[in-house]
């Protein structure tokens, strides 16, 4: 079966209509594929946002957003993620100039901002749970912890990925393979910042107003 398939492949004239060797797509497939992954991740968040939209008003006679959310902390959190986005951009610019040490420094700063974001968020979660406003308190809090927690988990995995790439870059340099990997993480990182725009707007700001 497979040998006949490979025969059929080899019988095709090179330069025919079908580009079976794939020579015309050097490494484009990875970026498009990663983009498609991000779009599917976007659907995950869409469903979580829909869940929060449906359940966000069910407090079960418990505390609501007005009593629980600390907007100054959220503002600091948001700026941490925004700063990490721009520092990742600087890392990409240095990568394009093929300057390995500066790229690594900007990646490290990005990781620190990301860690500060996750730290602040965990601190908020611990604070809420100690106040008795844990995920089991009401449907509102269950959906809140699921939505914001999923985002925080994504950022945490992004940091792990970032550290992995930093180790790889420091070992093998800014090879084309490493540049492609850094490009993928760049999309992932900025995508998480886009999701956070939705979170701070619909969960925190609109939540406090409702």
């Amino acid at each position, binding site marked *: 079966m497979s040998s006949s398939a490979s025969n059929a492949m080899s019988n095709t004239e090179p330069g025919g209509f079908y580009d079976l060797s794939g020579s015309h*797509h*050097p*490494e*484009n497939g*990875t*970026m*498009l594929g990663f*983009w*498609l992954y991000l*779009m599917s991740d*976007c*659907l995950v968040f*869409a*469903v979580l*946002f*829909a*869940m929060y*939209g*449906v359940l966000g008003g069910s407090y079960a006679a418990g505390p609501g957003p007005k009593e629980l959310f600390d*907007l*100054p902390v*959220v*503002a600091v959190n*948001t*700026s941490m993620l*925004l700063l990490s*986005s*721009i520092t990742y*951009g*600087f890392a*990409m*610019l240095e990568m*394009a100039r093929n300057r390995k040490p500066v790229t690594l420094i900007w990646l490290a700063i990005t990781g620190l901002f990301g860690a500060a974001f996750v730290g602040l968020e965990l601190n908020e979660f611990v604070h809420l749970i100690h106040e008795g406003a844990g995920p089991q308190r009401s449907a509102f809090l269950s959906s809140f912890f699921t939505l914001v927690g999923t985002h925080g988990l994504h950022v945490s995995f992004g940091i792990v990925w970032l550290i992995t790439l930093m180790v790889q870059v420091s070992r093998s340099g800014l090879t*084309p*393979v490493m*540049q*492609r990997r850094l*490009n993928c993480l760049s*999309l992932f990182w*900025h*995508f998480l*910042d*886009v999701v956070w*725009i*939705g979170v*701070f*707007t*619909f969960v925190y*700001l*609109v939540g*406090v*107003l*409702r």
Partner: protein
Amino acid sequence: MSQPTSASQETHDSRHVHSHPTGDSAGHGSFKSYMTGFILSVILTAIPFWLVMGKVFANHETTILIVVAFAAVQIVVHMVYFLHMNTSSEGGWNMLALIFTLVLVVIAISGSLWVMYHMNSNMKPMSAHDMRNLP
């Protein structure tokens, strides 16, 4: 005669691959575009927080509408300046996937809110007696 041309072709190709490892797929940002996106994002983030924390408008619906509008603009800013979205990257497939996803997102979110809102408002009201005898 043919040897030097093919050799020069090869060096040119390898240099080309080296400078653009991801092909012509992702438009790479410049320092200027990243800074433009960053400054726009800071403004578009600061104003909604100021509107809510400073209680600028007495009417909450007005504030909600403005805050959501700012979020929508900021998402577009991030897409353009940080994610380098445009209609030509990957031969338009990126944009096509994005539009398809946005359609699904709108259907999922608006559909859920619509259906669940009407489910709630059409539920038979529950008396205190029913509530006590819940299964």
